[in-house]
């Protein structure tokens, strides 16, 4: 817990700022987009019939519903959540190397195992804090502007945001352990998340579901949540396997590798 407490102290402001920013944005943007529901029927036919909505996995029918519009918005917030998660996970380890503090930390009696656990716990708490703040802000805005939505489905949509952020946080942790010398973790996080998002859009455009296994954005399809009231079991299984693999690979690597030093 000592390492966790220290890491939390170091990253607390960063996490809280992200959590607050995402909460404020979803709270204020949701009612703005609700106005679009009324105008959705008047959109030009070329726009409504093109592949644009397919890439976002939101049909116009779904978009006309309050929760559909919220899912559509959350799709974009998931990109922000992914960047936050990956940057947090990455910088927890790369920071020790680039700020030249690894030689201090790794020569103390806590051991690599405790350091790994402490940092991972910090990433998990960061994801939870952001997730809870996103959930509360979303719930509040829905209750204020479009009450009477199906709560189960709403929780699944919010869960998509949290699970995707978690995915990128653990991916970031693993990448940070494998490449601790990374001096641009935010750029790396942004690029990885954007590429993953593009892969999902591509898989939806070409309608090849298998490609979706390469990107976590595909695992949380708004239309599948709406139709089935659940996430796809095959994607979820794959998601859990990937999370497990990230943790195991990162753990094994941190125990075996030479500690990278900035000098």
């Amino acid at each position, binding site marked *: 817990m000592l390492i966790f407490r220290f890491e939390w102290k*170091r990253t607390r402001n960063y996490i809280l700022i992200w959590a607050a920013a995402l909460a404020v944005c979803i709270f204020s943007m949701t009612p703005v987009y609700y106005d679009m529901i009324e105008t959705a029927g008047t959109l030009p036919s070329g726009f409504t019939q093109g592949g644009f909505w397919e890439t976002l996995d939101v049909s116009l029918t779904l978009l006309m519903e309050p929760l559909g519009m919220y899912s559509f918005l959350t799709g974009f917030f998931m990109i922000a959540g992914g960047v936050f998660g990956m940057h947090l996970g990455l910088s927890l380890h790369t920071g020790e190397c680039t700020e*030249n503090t690894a*030689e*201090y930390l790794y*020569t*103390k*009696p806590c051991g690599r195992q405790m350091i790994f656990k402490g940092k991972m716990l910090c990433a998990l708490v960061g994801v939870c804090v952001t997730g809870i703040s996103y959930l509360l802000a979303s719930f509040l805005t829905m209750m204020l502007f479009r009450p009477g939505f199906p709560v189960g489905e709403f929780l699944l949509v919010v869960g998509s945001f949290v699970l995707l952020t978690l995915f990128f946080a653990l991916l970031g942790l693993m990448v940070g352990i494998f490449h601790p010398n990374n001096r641009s973790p935010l750029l790396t996080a942004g690029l990885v998340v954007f590429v993953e998002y593009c892969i999902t859009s591509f898989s939806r455009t070409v309608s090849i579901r298998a490609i979706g296994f390469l990107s976590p954005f595909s695992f949380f399809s708004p239309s599948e949540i709406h139709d089935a009231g659940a996430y796809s079991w095959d994607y979820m299984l794959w998601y859990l396997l990937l999370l497990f693999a990230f943790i195991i690979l990162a753990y094994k690597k941190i125990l*075996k590798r030479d500690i990278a*030093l900035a000098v």
Partner: protein
Amino acid sequence: MNEPVIVLNELTKSYGRHRGVEGISFSVCQGEIFGFIGPNGAGKSTTIRALMGLLKPTSGSASIFGLDCSQEPARIAKDVGYLPSENCYYNNMKVREMLLYTAELYGVDGHRRMEELAGRFNLDLSRRIGDLSLGNKKKVGIVSALLPSPKLLIMDEPTSGLDPLIQQTFYDLLKEENEHGTTIFLSSHVLSEVQRLCDRVAILREGKLVGVQSMKTLRENGYKKISLTAKSAIPEDFFSIPGTANFEQDKAGTSVSFMFNGSSMTIMEKLHQLELEDILIEEPSLEEIFLHYYE
């Protein structure tokens, strides 16, 4: 003989094409102050980082208190205070916070010791580490290493950046710690520092161990430095006798200087044959002994 605290057995660490260290073997006994000397890039820090478990050896082994350094670094670290050569502390923390965090990591209450050490080193505990000068950051490192009162102190270039007064405080403190039973392993390229403090010394050159000698042996059984001036030119091969090294002669050929560790009778006979104007036989400095190893 005291029990060995540090044992290196054919320790090799290579970084692909870059040289690390090769086949290093020596041991450090309990209660010793052991010096580890060599120029920059000789492999001192690599060896120390392998001892601290930061680097995994390519082959061979390193152990401290009988525990393998690459397998059980955390258990070893409980009894080891470590001062790295570079400052590696969290710049956004205050000195007090940083030192108390160190104490917590060691599971000790460091308040009293921290105040005592900070007082001796004139270290301001309320300042942010990032705002400190190089010398003050070094002081933070020294206090951090001494804070848990470890059984073994490993210090990599401990006095770089310290002013002479603080260096003296540091030497006094090390001697006190040693008197209380702490084993000290310190690397340096400041030979006078090693000369002043250490019982034994290991010399490292280009990643290989040149030798391990006690300071006493190094001085007593080592070379004498002979400088002399004769009235007439001395033949160039006049001192070509076993035990002569670093022979230098001036242009006129009347003044020579060399290091000698051969038979006293032989050199006396040789000197007797010369008509001497001046002669000086002295203990070479550690620098001269050290440089001799490098030739």
